[in-house]
């Protein structure tokens, strides 16, 4: 038995992400980026199949993010990190830089994925708020 299979709740979360057009991230219990969907890939300028898995600090740095003052936001303060660490939903707005250099202001909501055995990961949905798709239109 190789034991390489992901927990069912992560499998189901990934299946959900592949089926929606809302940009979304999925990380495992250690904060490793396991997957992001096509909509997120379009926003980030690189599909997940090319970017691949990344450790928490790498994905936290790769696309910014920056606060309104232009300063990089520490990985520890990002919604996904908070959701995973504290086991609660978290929300923030900031700016990211895509792989092709474009910058986007986005709003991010993250939530932990908890089971009887503990937190097995977290997912975050995010939404650009700088291109006419403001939060009021998030139900597209």
């Amino acid at each position, binding site marked *: *038995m*190789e*034991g*390489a*299979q*992901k*927990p*069912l*709740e992560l*499998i*189901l979360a*990934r*299946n*959900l992400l*592949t*089926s929606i057009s809302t940009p979304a991230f999925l990380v495992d219990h250690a904060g490793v980026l396991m997957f992001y969907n096509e909509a997120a890939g379009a926003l980030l300028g690189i599909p997940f199949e090319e970017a691949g898995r990344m450790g928490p600090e790498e994905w936290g740095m790769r696309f910014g993010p920056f606060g309104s003052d232009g300063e990089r936001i520490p990985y520890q303060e990002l919604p996904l990190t908070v959701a995973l660490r504290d086991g609660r939903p978290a929300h923030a707005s900031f700016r990211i830089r895509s792989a092709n250099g474009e910058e986007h202001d986005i709003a991010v909501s993250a939530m932990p994925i908890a089971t*009887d*055995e503990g937190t097995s990961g977290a997912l975050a949905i995010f939404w650009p708020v700088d291109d006419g798709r403001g939060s009021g239109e998030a139900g597209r």
Partner: protein
Amino acid sequence: MKVKVWGARGSVPSPGPEMNRYGGNTSCVELKLSDGETLILDAGTGIRSLGVALAAGMPNINILLTHLHLDHIQGLMFFPPCFKTDSRITIWGPSSPEASLEHRIARYISAPLSPVEVRELPCDVSFLDTPASEWEIGSARIRAESVTHRGPTLGYRITEGDTSVCYIPDHEPGLGAPLDGLEQEWISGYDLAHGAQLLIHDCQYTDEEYPDHVGWGHSPLADALTFARRTEAERVMLFHHDPLHTDDFLDSFLGTAVERWEALGGGATQLELAAERRELEVGAARELAAG
């Protein structure tokens, strides 16, 4: 390991002359281990006849429930050993943060649905959540893992020596993800089924029926076969037949399944549809498949 099917139907019992060959009883499979121990997989209506067949010779009984949908527990109340004072029955099933396994099963074995209550059963019965890690019953090692279905649902892998049987009667691994292109680590049930000598797997729908049942928790033929090929099961028994599928329909369905299976690179002798009272020895099945 000897396997005997006592109920292969899904959803609801479907008796009738047009169902006699594959049977109308719901999910129940008996596994006989080499040390004489018997494991019972699910307690659909097929368990009633199994209980009659066990007669007096089986004081210790382990029942492994995949989940608590009625077609997997309905036979419990009519399982003769439940009404014998010298029976010791252990019922294993999925845990829930909402209520204990006993409490959840007692919702069925209680008024007004039942004339008896769990506490009135004369047998010595205990209810145990399946452990997170592998455990032993007799000479077998048991592994239970959650799989994609509606509500908390387990699949089982039972291993004795180098022989393994995997039982996933209710499973929709292709929901939201095409199985043929998915990495194996992202396939529900993959580790349970990988390399099993016998995989007993959900195949409730034809591919034509499936679009009207997406998300109901069951597999169409294409996904059942792809899952079996991806997990490299040596022999496959398609299970949980739809209550609308008659014997004649299933005979035709088997023909289609074998063609599709061979197109995927499988051998015709590896594949069958579960039928009530079907018996096979998994070691023997392994030799047959290899031949």
